[in-house]
């Protein structure tokens, strides 16, 4: 199957046990997919020169939306005409990415007809990424997505980005909140913010059902929603015995089918707050000292389970390095109940957005704005009282901006009186 472009370098990536995207795309090209064929040629050129060959994205999109499409043009249309245009379409995935084969087949048929046939399942933010089509195909793709697949575009640009969560209650015993419903609800409620740029920069929501944070919300979302509980860890003493007795495999088999479980070394001693005791018979947890790190629970999932007074910790500000350096999200609401329709949460979000839109500079993420205007100002704007749970430590520098309202006479001095008391 002789392809248009020889790809000796790429061909090296057909070797080895891991699935090869090269073999996959070559099959497509061999079937006569011209876009795939030129894409392979272009990649080979990049592999030879060690430089990418895509131009800065132009502004393309579908009518009425300000996002969802990443324009892309090849910088060697002379050599690779079939990928001269190669725009990406971001399709909003169903929360936590469950599909049936029917909808996937429909999607594939549509994309073979109207695009390159190449995809990312999924993009880092969570979208279904349809890689590579021409400008004239954007509207038809959008039409068929909305009419035939009941799907819509995801976010790009200075919009709310496609929210995503861990699979939560759908298949996880630890989920303290309904991540999928929260994500779906936010996505629907804020469709306008998702499709039409209204922010200083991008804004991302991610929700994890528990502190394991399987969607990396704390590292990647401007607003991170992480499930937790306020009451006691539920303990099944019988099951504890079964673990210590070697009947149950610790860590749910994550370290293999071992039975040499040492509860002291593996649980008691590793609890970050050392708030557990085991006397050989029963396990005692001093829950008031528990920081809900989940370690004991993940090691003995059949004996220990999160409590029942559940909600979420809300953290804000995570982002990648550009511009001021990477940030993790910081706690601003230690605990909030999360029940549909999530009114309290949405009120918080809207106050947050108002403040950000009013004060944020162009391309200033929320986390950077908080750094610039201080966490104190942020808390005032969202009407939240300071709480020690928001900081690892209080300030260690003495540069305190005291509130003049608390000072007799505020910022004013009586200069004359001062000089009466003190000769210059």
């Amino acid at each position, binding site marked *: 199957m002789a392809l248009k472009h020889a790809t000796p370098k790429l061909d090296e990536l057909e070797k080895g046990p891991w699935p090869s995207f090269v073999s996959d795309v070559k099959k497509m090209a061999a079937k006569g997919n011209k876009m795939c064929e030129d894409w392979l040629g272009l990649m080979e050129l990049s592999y030879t020169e060690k430089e990418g060959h895509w131009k800065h994205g132009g502004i393309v999109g579908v009518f009425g939306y300000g996002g969802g499409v990443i324009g892309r043009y090849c910088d060697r249309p002379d050599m690779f005409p079939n990928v001269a245009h190669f725009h990406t379409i971001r399709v909003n995935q169903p929360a936590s990415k469950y599909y049936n084969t029917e909808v996937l087949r429909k999607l594939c048929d549509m994309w073979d007809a109207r695009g390159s046939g190449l995809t990312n399942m999924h993009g880092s933010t969570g979208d279904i990424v349809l890689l590579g089509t021409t400008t004239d195909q954007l509207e038809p793709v959008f039409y068929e997505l909305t009419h035939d697949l009941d799907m819509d575009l995801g976010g790009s640009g200075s919009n709310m980005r496609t929210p995503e969560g861990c699979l939560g209650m759908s298949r996880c015993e630890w989920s303290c909140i309904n991540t999928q419903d929260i994500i779906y609800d936010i996505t629907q409620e804020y469709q306008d913010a998702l499709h039409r740029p209204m922010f200083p920069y991008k804004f991302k929501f991610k929700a994890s059902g528990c502190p394991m944070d399987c*969607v990396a919300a704390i590292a990647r979302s401007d607003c991170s929603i992480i499930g937790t509980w306020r009451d006691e860890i539920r303990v099944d003493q019988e099951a504890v015995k079964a673990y210590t007795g070697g009947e149950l495999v610790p860590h749910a088999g994550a370290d293999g089918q071992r039975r040499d479980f040492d509860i002291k070394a593996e649980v008691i001693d590793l609890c970050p707050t050392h708030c557990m005791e085991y006397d050989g018979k029963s396990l005692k947890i001093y829950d008031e000292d528990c920081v809900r790190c989940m370690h004991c629970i993940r090691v003995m999932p059949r004996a220990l389970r999160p409590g029942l007074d559940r909600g979420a910790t809300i953290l804000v500000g995570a982002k990648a390095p550009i511009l001021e350096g990477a940030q993790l999200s910081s706690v601003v609401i230690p605990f909030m109940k999360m029940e549909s329709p999530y009114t309290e949460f949405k009120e918080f979000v809207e106050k947050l957005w108002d403040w950000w839109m009013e004060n944020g500079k162009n391309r200033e993420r929320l986390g950077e704005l908080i750094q610039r205007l201080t966490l104190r100002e942020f808390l005032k704007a969202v009407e939240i009282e300071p709480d020690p749970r928001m900081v690892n430590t209080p300030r260690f520098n003495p540069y305190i901006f005291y509130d003049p309202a608390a000072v007799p006479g505020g910022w004013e001095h009586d200069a004359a009186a001062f000089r009466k008391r003190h000769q210059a």
Partner: protein
Amino acid sequence: MAFDPNNVMQDRITDIGPPKYDKFFPPVIRENFGKWKYHEILEPGVLMHVSESGAEIYSVRVGSARLISTDYIREVCNIADKYCGGHLRWTTRNNIEFLVSDKSKLQPLLADLRGRGSWFPIGGTGNSITNIVHTQGWAHCHTPAIDASGVVKAVMDDLYEYFGNHKLPAQIRIALACCLNMCGAVHCSDIAILGVHRKPPFVENERVQKVCEIPLVIAACPTAAIKPKKVGETKSVEINNNRCMFCGNCYTMCPALPLADGEGDGIALWVGGKVSNVKSAPMFSKLAVPFIPNEPPRWPTAVKKIRQIIEAYAAGARRYERVGEWINRIGWERFFEKTGLEFNHEHIDDYRLAMTTWRTTTQFKF
């Protein structure tokens, strides 16, 4: 009614959002939603979740290239139809999970998958090295310093033995980003592969004014290295190379400031980040190897250094200890010894928070 190019707005549907999450649930998941009691990893890649009701669901996780074709997806569909009543999902790390409700179909599915060559490696669970979160690279983006999919393929080929088993002290999460924008959110990974530039952008004076908004370009520079400048009559910008740390953010704002360069660009490796709140708090990844040249198609040096790190970790870490927790226990001086990596000037932070990284105690190991 089909799309009519001459009447784009005809019965247009907008803002419907994604399909509801439960639309594609297999029945057992719909019925046991929120009722799951515990899980067990039967073997690498095979999860069993058991409900309060006693119901069970088996999930078989397979690695995927993420950059996949419609034909590949169709093959996945065929498998899912055969064993999963057409139900499947993708994970947050781009693995595929076949959702088996009928226990009797589990072994046949595994056998089938194993019979399909190297397309469907089973694993990625527990103390394995699961799929590498990554980005576009030369495949689709305009700012990459390296390719993404190719590097991932080369690294996973080498680490394949770790994907399909649980022999590590804990999970290792690897991520790749092809430039400092870090779309892979690699800043909190056990091991991060980052594409870096090493040449300041060059200024295409005649184009700047045409294609860029000069004030935004100037504001885009974290180190204020960019100043406005006039070249004859045309407005342009000037870059103070001494202040440039090659982040590429100005190029993001202005195509007339290219900085990509075949010889200049390459890979930096980072270690010790984590996201979960288990035991220790989330941590950023720290610099391990400042620079490795671009070596397509298989980036042998990067692959080798990553293995060095993983083998030192596997040999030295205690059970449940993530890479960063291991390093914090033994200390960075030991990390560099045990991995055989060099410590040099680039490792010493010199950005805004640098002072917080200095050793302000006499506690260290000789």
